[in-house]
């Protein structure tokens, strides 16, 4: 004999206590979006409009910017916020267009790997960048490096 469920019993198990990643993902998208607006347009303004403008961009220009901790942090912040924002956005698209299963796991996995690799590499480059590495042959170095 089947038993009729109590009318107010929960149809799906109650949500597990603790942080709700979907909620924080949603908040992150909005918060990082606002910060990224400032960072990206600031980046474009400084690189393309100030001074000589776009013609000034070369190896030396980038090397000069990354010698300054302010621009190092600006670029690293932009890198982290933008990559996580983009990867999370792609994740929601994967959620919308694929059904739960292996394909979905594979797609989300590759998104995670791509984002992590790019973030780690990017951060490493920004903080360890040295335009004039010691011990390099002189003909490979840019002209502004002090002659050894």
């Amino acid at each position, binding site marked *: 004999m089947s038993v009729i469920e109590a009318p107010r019993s*929960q149809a799906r198990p109650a949500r597990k206590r603790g942080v709700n990643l979907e909620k924080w993902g949603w908040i992150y998208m909005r918060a990082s979006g606002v910060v990224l607006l400032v960072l990206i347009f600031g980046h474009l303004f400084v690189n393309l409009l100030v001074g000589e403008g776009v013609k000034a961009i070369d190896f030396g220009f980038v090397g000069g910017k990354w010698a300054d901790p302010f621009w190092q942090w600006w670029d690293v912040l932009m890198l982290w916020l933008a990559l996580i924002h983009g990867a999370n956005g792609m994740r929601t698209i994967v959620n919308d267009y694929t059904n739960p299963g292996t394909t979905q796991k594979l797609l989300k996995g590759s998104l995670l790997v791509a984002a992590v690799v790019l973030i780690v590499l990017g951060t490493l480059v920004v903080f360890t960048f040295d335009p004039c590495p010691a011990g390099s042959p002189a003909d490979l170095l840019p002209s502004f490096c002090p002659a050894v």
Partner: protein
Amino acid sequence: MSSATLEQPPAAEAAIQSFTVTFLIRRFDPDVDTEPRWQDFDVEMYATDRVLDALHKIKWEQDGSLTFRRSCAHGICGSDAMRINGRNRLACKTLIKDLDISKPIYVEAIKGLPLEKDLIVDMEPFFASYREVQPFLIANSTPEAGKERVQSIAKREIFDDTTKCILCAACTSSCPVFWTDGQYFGPAAIVNAHRFIFDDRDDAASVRLDILNDKEGVWRCRTTFNCTDACPRGIEVTKAIAEVKQAIMRGKP
């Protein structure tokens, strides 16, 4: 000539013009078909007729096997939500004059719910998520003996929009998130939760906010506004969902 005399009586009223409208209807008979198929019908219609009248004419005069739901036929019962020219509409509120009859009019069942026959879908998943948000008054207080719970006009105004829902499923079945992920609560359930969350006579707002703060809850909403566009009652569904999101972040309505 006295001005009071009747001018020439209007020439015998021109017969109201009727049009031949082609309907392409997505048919599916589970006993015969493995896949749905499109079938076309030519129906003589007036501009003031509705799509529901066309379906009636087809069923009564051309093909009695055409299956669809309708009850009140006046936009109140919410039985005849269907996809008309790619948009979710009530067949009983869609006038022929508002459609482009130079091309065939496509009519199919709403998407995202299991198709049962022709224009009929299984509404159970839809009502299951509706039940989950506990759409009934849960009050801890008891009103004075012989009195009702008093509510000010301003407090009633807050959730006025979401009381209009007729549960036709036009919004939920227009939602692209719901199409791929049947687990999502869907706009209609959130609208009906909103109706009680923002009702100050109700004491279980936190319970409902907790239910909707689920992995499959309001955060899946992508604000595509399909639901607001689809609602035959003109409920601002996306706005209601946004208000629930805000309430969850505040932790109270």
